[in-house]
């Protein structure tokens, strides 16, 4: 079966489409065995990693009890372990970051390919890729010193005034909190989406776009009806990668989110402070060998389950789209 040009690179070889030729015996045997060894090593590392994580988290579940899932109070220093604020914080910061980053990122990719003059294309895409490799701690420092001051003194009070203090724009405006975290996270993941989407958009065959144009479609219609649908799988792949990075972002959010407080026990306001699973593990890492330290392993396990679920869900979307085109 011929592979279509709408494949996601991640799916090559899954159904055995490229495996017809077997390795011949004899001179290729060492090569085959070393490949087996590498695969086994990777598999062993992954299994051992998951095993250690589960094993160390069990005392944590016992220490915190089932209330870890039902309690809505998280205060590590006071031995109050309720993960709901953290799970909500993780999901909400990622969701709002993507809400901003995906349209802007895909739009930026489209403009790089179709709007910006050819001689500037290389410069602009290099700039975007540079943003993608900036270390998280740099974003954390920038967020704490620049964005937190701006949001706390100007941005959030202005927004609160505009909404007349109605939920979700109510409560105090400390600057640090979910809004700051989402904004910085959006800036962090947008270059990833732009860079990967740009590669996928460039790969759309010219025949399709020229065919649509020759039938009288406008530029906008070509983008909406031809380019974006054909890039859907690739863009979903890019968004999945961005989601993975956002869900696991640790050090930047540890400095920016302001912690779970009595004023915002759950991050359900725009200006609420909170924490995420990864950031909380980093902040409380000093107690990792204590009794409460195993609870941090439990948090890590919950985070892995969330990331795994999101990735699986994204892959199933990709697979469904592939079947549609086939």
């Amino acid at each position, binding site marked *: 079966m011929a592979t279509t040009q709408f494949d996601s690179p991640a799916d090559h070889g899954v159904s055995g489409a490229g495996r017809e030729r077997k390795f011949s015996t004899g001179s290729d045997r060492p090569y085959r065995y070393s490949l087996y060894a590498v695969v086994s090593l990777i598999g062993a590392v992954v299994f051992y990693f998951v095993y250690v994580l589960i094993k160390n988290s069990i005392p944590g579940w016992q220490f915190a009890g089932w209330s870890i899932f039902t309690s809505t109070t998280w205060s590590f*220093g*006071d031995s109050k372990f309720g993960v709901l604020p953290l799970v909500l914080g993780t999901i909400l910061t990622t969701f709002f970051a993507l809400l901003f980053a995906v349209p802007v990122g895909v739009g930026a990719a489209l403009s790089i390919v179709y709007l910006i003059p050819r001689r500037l294309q290389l410069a602009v895409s290099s700039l975007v890729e540079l943003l993608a490799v900036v270390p998280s701690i740099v974003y954390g420092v920038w967020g*704490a010193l620049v964005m937190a001051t701006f949001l706390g003194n100007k941005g959030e009070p202005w927004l609160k005034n505009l909404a007349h203090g109605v939920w979700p724009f109510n409560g105090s*405006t*400390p600057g640090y909190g979910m809004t700051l975290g989402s904004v910085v996270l959006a800036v962090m993941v947008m270059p990833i989406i732009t860079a990967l989407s740009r590669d996928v958009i460039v790969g759309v065959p010219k025949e399709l776009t020229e065919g649509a144009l020759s039938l009288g479609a406008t530029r906008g219609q070509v983008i909406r009806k031809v380019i974006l649908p054909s890039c859907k799988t690739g863009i979903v792949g890019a968004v999945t990668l961005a989601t993975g990075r956002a869900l696991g972002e640790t050090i930047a959010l540890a400095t920016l989110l302001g912690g779970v407080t*009595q004023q915002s026990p759950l991050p359900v306001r725009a200006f609420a*402070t909170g924490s995420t699973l990864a950031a909380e593990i980093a902040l409380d890492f*000093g*107690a990792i060998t204590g009794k409460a330290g195993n609870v941090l392993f439990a948090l890590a396990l919950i985070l892995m389950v969330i990331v795994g679920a999101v990735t699986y869900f994204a892959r199933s979307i990709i697979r469904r789209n592939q079947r549609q085109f086939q």
Partner: protein
Amino acid sequence: MKKAFRTPIVALAASIAMVAVGVTPAFAASESSVLSNALVVKTVPSPSLNMGGSSFDANLVNAAYAAWKTQSANNGNSLNAYQSSNSGTGRSGVDASTPTLNIGFSDVPLNYAGQDVTDTSQYVQVPVALGGVAIITNLHYATTATVTNKFGTKTTTSRLTSNGTPTGRTCAQLVSAYPVALDGKTLGSIFAGSITSWSNPAVIAQNPRIAVEAYVPIAKAVKAKGKRGHKGYKPAVPQKNRLELVNCLTMTTTPTITVYSRTAGSGTTFIFRDYLAKADSAEFPVPSSAAFTAAAATFSGSSTLAPAVAGKDGSIGYVEYGYALQNHLASLRMKNVAGAYVNSTASAVAAAATAGLAAINANKSNCPAGWSAAGPQTYNANSVNTQCFSITNVNAGAAYPIAGFSYAIVPKTIGNANVAIVTTKFLLFLTQSGAGTNSSNTFGQNLAGAQAYVALPKPIENVAYGLIGQINAGVDLSATN
């Protein structure tokens, strides 16, 4: 600037001469030879030692560690840099079944109020630092104010200076001359969330001198009634404004108070709450390390709380005084028991230590047997109350009311001889001022003033010396390692 921190503490020696040590120094050699041997590590242990915990001590320990490393390359290789987090982590790092820290630093004694559930007789707690908790704020003031006359377009602008002219002092200048002052009850109300605005009357009442002239409407404008020339016509009455003295705290750019707190487990919080339990016991009955419920955001260390206050207009927080200086933040003057408004300077903290230690001594009978005035060692945790180690809210004219000691916690028996030697040497370096040795200026306590702490008073240095001598019953530092 540094001269201001050189405080003569000779007077301390006389007043606290009755501080009973309760432990006999276990070092066999003379003190001067012990201290001379403490400067250089001869055998580097493997793995190297870890220390960390309270952010209250961080500035002093970092400075002492930098000086320690210059003594010899072995010193830096034996001990890793200070990991600043909070007092709770300092204690849990040392008393865990697999400890991550060789030396833990905490402002709260081990197992106070049963919080750590550990056998305290297995540990030595050495006083290492004496500092003040500064209440930091970020306040900016308007330089002009406008009053609009109703039913007209005329506006009256006040130039907010002390005499209404450009030669008068603005609010910013007035506040730097007379820093904002509060008493414990008002401060407690702010941190409890019952006072939410800088223009609250209780706050203003304690700051009468920071006032500027401004136009204040005293009579409302009245619209004209009826038509001119007709019967019953009443002409419009213009608004009357009068120049009055207005407190600067009603002219802040952000009147809402944003409270910032530390996360639970902080020893700085404990010292602050210990003070509030004495000054505002209605709202804060029991000292603890819990975060403040009125806080808009919490931070894991003083090093992140201070910049947060620096970045948010109208915010208030609390950090060890050195962080206030580092971030160029104004700190409040606090009213002490004697009625004076005092800022968190070295001399004020030293005065608090003097009076506080005298008070602790007077209360010794209420403390468990084996108690030492400046650092608990072996005791039944359930019978300790803060009177046995707290120096907050002391009754002395020049004393700053929010001051406290901080302690280094180490196991009494250390299996690895090299680790015990490095621990002993570094703790001696940190807690002593080295008088009587050839290198008297290099020891850690000489750096206290420059880092905005107060050097430990000599009797407390002696107590620390004796406590360090309990590690492995007095390590022999004259050996080849």
